[in-house]
Every structure is written in C-alpha cells, then in structure tokens.
C-alpha cells in the first residue's frame, strides 16, 4: 500500500495513476536493492516498513539520503502518534496521517525537525477538534439544531 507520494515543491497528493504505476515498480523490487528509482526525470525514494511502503518523488539534484531520513522521521512520528503504527492505522486515519505530514513538511520543505514538537502540535490540534466535537454532540447543541 502506497502512502503519500508527493512531488517536491509541488506537494501534490499524487494522482492515483502515478501511485499505481510506481507501486508496480516498487513492489517488484527485491529487498537487497537500493531505495531509489529513476522515474520520468525524477527520482523516487521509497522505504519499506513491514507491509508499508512510503515513497517520495524528488528532483534530480535532491539528496536521496536526506529524503530517506525524512521518511524515517515521518514514520517515527506516526509511530509515536498511533503507538506502533500499522497499516490499519493509516487506512482508517488517512486524514490524520496527512495532518501529521502537514506538520512535518510544508510546500515540499521540511519545516519541523523535532519529533516532539510535531507530536505536541498534533496533540494540540486534536484536542481542539475533540472539544469542538464535544460541543457538537452536547445535548443543548442537538436541541439547538433540531429547533433550527
């Protein structure tokens, strides 16, 4: 399963077609091969964590090793956030995975290098969402809506 693929500095959640094509390439690669693929003038850096593959599409002159580290960084943050992350976490919380990534990268650039900070920021936003939700589900709110 391929998770966020993005073109650097475009930061596009890649089209499924791209993902399908890439996953075809990546999944057939053996375990002992390098983590880089030359792909349509870009480089794709991927990393496998058990059944999860993360891949990023970067420019020719980007540093592959740096990208690998970013991926690892991202996975560590996810791991911390979900508590030993697995495929199901990402499937059911795809939006949260996106939010985490948003905190890590912006406009294709790494914006936060501290795992702790990212975790703190995500937690703060989650609590905001939760309070909003609690409000929404409170009885008074229901009544207010019903009588609208």
């Amino acid at each position, binding site marked *: 399963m391929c998770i966020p693929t993005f073109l650097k500095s475009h930061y596009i959640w890649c089209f499924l077609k791209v993902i399908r094509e890439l996953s075809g390439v990546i999944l057939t690669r053996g375990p002992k091969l390098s983590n880089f693929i030359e792909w349509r003038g870009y480089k794709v850096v991927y990393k496998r964590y058990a059944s999860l593959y993360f891949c990023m599409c970067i420019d020719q002159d980007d540093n592959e090793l740096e990208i690998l580290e970013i991926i690892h960084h991202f996975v560590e943050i996810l791991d911390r956030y979900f508590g030993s992350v697995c495929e199901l976490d990402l499937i059911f919380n*795809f*939006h949260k995975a996106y939010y985490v990534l948003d905190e890590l990268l912006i406009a294709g*650039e790494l914006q936060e290098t*501290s795992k702790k900070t990212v975790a703190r920021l995500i937690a703060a936003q989650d609590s905001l969402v939760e309070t909003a*939700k609690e409000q929404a589900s409170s009885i008074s709110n229901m009544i207010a*809506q019903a009588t609208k």
Partner: protein
Amino acid sequence: MAGSSIMESFFQRSLEDLIKGLRLQMIGESKFIAKAMEEIRREIRSTDPNTKSIALQKLTYLNSIHGIDMSWAAFHVVEVMSSTRFSHKKIGYLASSQSFHDGTEVILLITNQLRKDLNSTNEFEVGLALHCLSVIATTDLARDLTPEIFTLLSTSKVFVKKKAVAVILRIFSKYPDAVRVSFKRLVENLESSDPHVVSVVVGVFCELATKDPRSYLPLAPEFYRILVDSKNNWVLIKVLKIFSKLALLEPRLAKRVVDPICEHMRRTGAKSLMFECIRTVVTCLTDYESAVKLAVEKIRELLGDDDPNLKYLGLNALSILGPKQLWAVLENKEVVIKSLSDADPNIKLESLHLVMGMVSESNVAEITRVLINYALKSDPEFCNDILGSILSTCSRNVYEIIVDFDWYVSLLGDMSRNPHCRKGEEIENQLIDIGLRVNDVRPELVRVGRDLLIDPALLGNPLLYRILSAAAWVSGEYVVFSKNPFELMEALLQPRTNLLPSSIRAVYTQSAFKVLVFCLHSYLLQKEAIPSSTLDDLAPGVSNLISERECPEGSDLAKCEAPADYEQDEGFNPRVSNRSVEDLAIENGGDIIVTHGQASSSVSLENDAFTHESVVYLLNMIKMALVPVSGSHEVEVQERARNVLGLVELVQQELPGLLVQKEKSFDNEEPKASKIIKLMHAAFSKELGPISVSAQERVLVPDGLMLKENLSDLETIYGDVLLPPPSSISIGSRLFVERNGVSLFMHTKVESEPSTESTSQLAEHRERHGLYYLPAEKNEIGSNDYPPANDPQLPDNLNDGTQDLVKLTEQSLVSKKKPTHAKPRPMVVKLDDGDEVHVSAMKLVKEPNDDLLSDAVRDILLGNEARPTLSRSNPSDKSSGNRRGKGVYLTSEHASESKELGDAEKPGHGSPSSRRSKHHTHGKERHRSPRKNDEGKEENGQKNKEKSSHRHSRRKARRRADEPLNAVAQTTVVPDFLL
C-alpha cells in the same frame, strides 16, 4: 476517528463505517462506492455542518484512495472551510488542498475566508490557511494575500512564522511582485534565533537559488555564516545545495567555501550530509585538488559499503566527476566494473555509464568486446542498455573513437545477432551512415550485410527487420564489393522474405534490382572486353557516354532530347560497346576515383563468374521469386517488383542477342537491353554521400528564383516522372513480347523511360532512407528548367565537395593529438564525388592568396582586422571559413544577395572585389567565420539560423567566447577590441 454517537443517530455513515464497509466489500467495490457516493451527495447538501463535513471527509477519502472525482463538491468545500468550528474547518481545508487547482472557479470565493483565517488568533487556524495556500495559491490569491503573509513573516509565533516563510515560495512563484514587498523580511529571518525558522528559510532560498542562482549571490555571506556555524544537518544540506549553485558563478566564493565543506565532510557522521558535501565538491569544486581527493576518498568508502544506496550514490558521484577528473573513475575501475553485475538495475546502469565514460580509442575494442559478451548473459533490459550505450559512445562525434571500422562493422553485425537486441533502428542508421561515410569499410560492410541477409533464421525476428533493411540496402548499393552477387541475390529473394513488412520488402526488391543490374552489367563487360583491345578510338564514345550519363538525371531535359541523343548513340554504338573494362569503370563509376580501382578489379575477378548459364539462372530465379510479389497490394513493393521483372523480361528477350553481340558488334544496332543496363548501372553507381542536417540551407537559391513557383513546377515534373515507369515498362515489355521487331519510337521510349525511372527510383530510395543527397537535388533543380540555376550549379557542387572535405579535415585536425585518427577521417572525405574533391582540393591550394587579399581589402574598408586570415596558412582552415561564410549567407533574406555572395565565396571564383565591397555588412559577417573553425559544426548550424539582424551585436560577444577556445583566434580578437 471514533464514530460519534450523534452521527449514528442521524443515520449517517461515518468515515470509519465507510472504510470498514469498503474493506468488507471485496467484490462489489464499485457498487459500494457508487452507493456511498449517492449518500454523500445527499448528505453534503445538508444544512447541518456536522453532516456536511462528515460527508466531505468521506468524499475526500474516496477521492484520495479511489480517485473518485470531487470537483463537483468544490462549493461545499468552501462552505465547510468557512465553518466556525475548527474540526469542520480542518476537514474543509484538507479537502480544498486536495481538490482545488488553478482552474477551480470557487477559488475566487475563498480569498476573504483565507484572509480571515490568516488573521485569526488561533495559530492552528492560521496554520491551516497557510497550508492550504501553500498548495492552492493562485496568482490572484497570492496577490491579494501578500500583505497578510508579510505580516505573518514577522510574527512572534514560531509555528506560524515557519509556515509563512514556506508559503512565500508559492507566493513568489505565483506573484513575483511579492518579492518587492517581502523579500527583505524573508532575508531577516535568515538571522532568526529560532533554528526551525532558519531551517525553513534556508529551504526556501535553496529552492529559489535552484531556479536563478545569480540573484542570490549577495546573500552568500549569510549562507556562509550558516555553513560554518550551523550544527543542524538538515540546514547544512540545504546550504550546501545553495553553494553548489553559487560557487559555479563566483570562483572566489568557491575558494571560500571549499575549506568548511571539506571540514564537514571529514567530521560529519551523517551519510546524507557527507554525500551532499561530496556532491558539492564534484559538481562545482573540481578545481581544488585536495577537496577532490578527499571526496574521492569518501566516494571510495561509499563504494565499498554494503548498503546498495550508498553504493549507488557513490557511483553517481563518480559519474558526475568522471568527465572532469577521469582519474577518479580509473582509480575505482574495479568496483565500477564489478558493479555491472550488481543486482540493482540502477547500480548497473550507473556503472555502465561510468564504464562507457572510460572508453577511448585505444581500449574501445576491448571494452566493447567484454560488454557485448556480458550483454549476452544479462537480462534483456540491461542488455539493451549496454548495446545502446555502446552504440551511442562509438558513434559520438562521427565515430570519433573508432579507428578500425572493419571491426566496428562486424561488431554491429554481432550486436544484431544478440537475441535481446532492440536497437534495430540505431544499428540500421549506423550501418548506412558508415557505408556512406567510410569508403574503405564497404567491402567488410557488404560481407556483414551478406551474413545477416543470408541467415534465414534472422528473418523470423521482427526486431531485426530494420537491421536487415540496412543490410539489404548496403548490399545493393555496394554490390561491387560482393564476393558472390548470385548468393546475395538468393538471399534477397529467399522465400522467408515474405515475413518482412512491405517497406522493408521494398528495400529488398530494390537491392535485388541493383544486384541484377550489376550482374548483367558485369556480364556485358565481360562480353565486350574481348574485342575492345582492337578498338582504341574511345574519345567520341567517352564524350557520348558522358552526355548519356547526364541524360537520365536531368529528367526534363533528358526527355525532350532523348530521341536525338539515342539516335546519335546508335551511330556511335560500336565504339561505345567496345570500350575496355577499365574505361567503363572510369566512366560509369566516374565519380568514385578511389573505388574505381577496386571496382574494376573486382569486376575482372568476377569475369569468369558471369557465364551465360549463371545469368539465365539468375533471371529465372528473380522471375520466380518476384512474379508473386508483383501482385502485392503494397504499392512500394509492387512497383519495384514490376520494375525488376520488366528488366528481366527485356533482358530475357534479348539474351541471345546479347550473347552473339560481340560478333555483330559492327552492326549499327546494339541491343537496347544492354544499353538500358548501362544506363541503369550508371545511375546506380552514382555514389551517395552523407549530408549534414543543414545541407538544405547551404543550397544557394539562384538569382531571382521564386521558390514557391518553382516548387509547383517541380511537382508536375515529378508527377510526370513518377507515374509512367510502371506502366511504360510493362507496355514496353509487352510490346516486345508481341512483336519482336522494334520501331524507333518504341525503342526510344523504352530507353528513356527506364533511365528517368531509375533516377526517380534512386531519389525515392534516398528519400526513404533519409539520405538527402545534394547532387541529386541539384539535378532536380537544374532540370527544373531554370536556366540561371544551372549556371552556378557546377561551382556549387564543387563547393560542396570542399565543404565536406573541410569538415572532415577539420575534424582530423582537431583530434590531431590522436595520430591514429588521421587515418579514418580521410576515408570519410572521399565520400563525395571523387572528381569534385579532387578539383576542389586543387582549388584549395590556389585559393588562399586570393582570399587573403580580398579579406585584407574588406578589412581595410570595414576597419576590420586583417590579421587572422594571414596568420593561418592552413588551407583547410581557410576553406572552412569559406564554408561557414557561405552558410551564413544562405540564411540572409534576399535570395539574390545571398547568391551573389555565395558566388564570391566560392574558391577560385574570379572574386571580383567590386562585388564583395558592395556587400560590406555581409562581408564583415563573413569575416568572423574563419575564427569559428574550432567550434563544432553543429554550432555553425545554429549560427546559421540566427537572424542576420542579430549577428552584428552578437558578434563581439561570440568573439569573446571564442577567445579562450582558440589560440589562433587570440590574434584575431585583439584588434577587434581595439575597434
């Protein structure tokens, strides 16, 4: 997201329900999605923000995982974005960054919402808006929101600030005017105390500098400070990237940074940083020996690592370094070659590039031999990578590194036999190209071609068809070198050729035609050779023959004059037919002085091979093979097959006549067949040469010629020429069948027809093979009933010969360091008509003074420098100047002017100085041409394209550029600056 109870009470499926449902519905997924979409469409219109946002969230999910279109919901996205609740807002913003793009109309509606959120007191809301902006900002949004972003750049909240900095990238790219406003503040952030902000700012500058490094040179001190002080690897990597761009522009900067970079390289434990240091050194600091040495050392470490990633990157760095510092590659030769058998295709490819980078003319044979053997063993994809890189390396710069063409041609043959070979097209091109360019290799080429053609197994492989087509063409074109033309014919006509596609079949048939003509001609010669010794008065015959030879080419002219000509022919016939073998060779192959020796010798060798029986056998074989083909639905094949059959029938009619011909050779009637054969042989033995891409431009447009008009003329003529052949041939032959006697009318018709036919076929042939051959073209123009064009035609040809010569000698001069090189080059020279080269070479010797004088005159007139040409005594240099000069003119707008000037350029052309002085400005232009000698001819082509109006201003700039290039040019440059 935990399914909240309220949603269930509203009977709305939550996202989680949706996902669960999807995972359970393994089979009816699309149905399930369709149903879910129906729900979403309903729910998203709900007035309840909760229901709406959940619906949107589900839609976003389906969009991102299943690619369901969500553009229809754009307005709902805006609605959810503008919700006051953070949780809804978040969903809305996610949806917007996922689905909005520049073309989304509702984007106009969100400006105020974004502004509101950017000014929000909740930093997370600001963050959402910034994220959204970083993805979807359009020019309008960027323009309208620049003030807000500007404010945020100096906010105290780090969380917001770093995002605002990152968004700047998108803003700048969409709305460059924002730079005026916010650039200063962005730069200030470089000195921010917060490492996160610095990191992002550096990232932004890194991206900016990639696009236009020069603008950021003034910031170098800031970056330098970061480079030295920062301990953050992420930041360092970005700074290094910036420096690798800047250092290329400013050598002094390179000097400054080289030490800190080496320091980082030595110290760091992070491979990513180390690799970035290496990459910086190999891309832009190659002048600093110690740095390069250190980098190579580190590269070696990477190469020795077990991690395929590091190995790949090590090879990658080497291949960047390779062109500049080959020693680094050679030092690691072993690892590189071993990596060829690595499991990873990337590594293999990278090492292949490196290996090919090490190829030089001394080791090319060895390396390619090894690689070809290796290719046989490797997987098809990599095998083709190998073949491809061998082909491209060997053909680089007109086969620069190839000394032994015989070897190379047989290598091409071997490559073709590689079962995985998919490089048919490239090999095809090279086979033909080498055939055209390199005279001496033709016998070997024909041998290789024959080996390919004769192997029926190869016909089963569609990948080889292109190669076979080249082999067939080569065998037909250079059949003189064939040891056994009969065998060749059998190969060309073997039954399995029906597997070939029609276009290639047509080439086969045409080649068979050529072989047939050659065989018949040789047979005739053999017959005639015997009595020839008795008759020595060849002169009239020769002149006649020349006129005869001219005829078929000038189609129009030939047609109208044909009857007279042939009647005349009749009279001279005895003598014509009694020429000795040698004379014929000279005349028919008149163009190839070099080959003529070989040709005649091979002919004489063949003498005993062409017996009556063998010819009869040959004709029967052709008939048998081609009669079925003549009904082919492919016009190309059909026409050619019919042409061959027509000739065969004609010859068969007359064969007895041919046989006894020598006895009654004093009768005033030579069999038409033999004459036709001679004509055709003459046509086919006209040599084809390689032509540069810009050849068309070099053809002078004759004075006052209206190109358009002329072309339409050409069309009618061409149509005339093209149409008759098939029919006329068949009519002709049928007529012969019907009544053996021949009226004069029929006689001439049949004669003239095939001659034009053969030329038109030749033209066709060339066309199909992409071989544009100047003389042929000129003949077309010449025959185009355009008298003025005819006039300069001769010198024109001559000039072409010079040009080719010059091109080639130039090449050999340039590569003079390699002495072996001188050898293949001259061979290539003789591609063009031997006569012309000869004559032009003579002219060359005479010319320089002439040219020097005129140069001097011009220089005095124009105040231009006179020295350059004086300083060069090398005639080839001289004439290359001419060539270029001419090229330059051709592009000038006025045909007449260009023509006149072109004339003036021609070596040995009386060079009336009045003419030249008339065109001062052009003369000046022309003048710079000699200096360009050292530049590649491709560049010349480019320059030709430049508009003449620009030339003047560019001239100086170019001169400056030339300066370091050319030691000789040095002398030329100085006076120029004095101007």
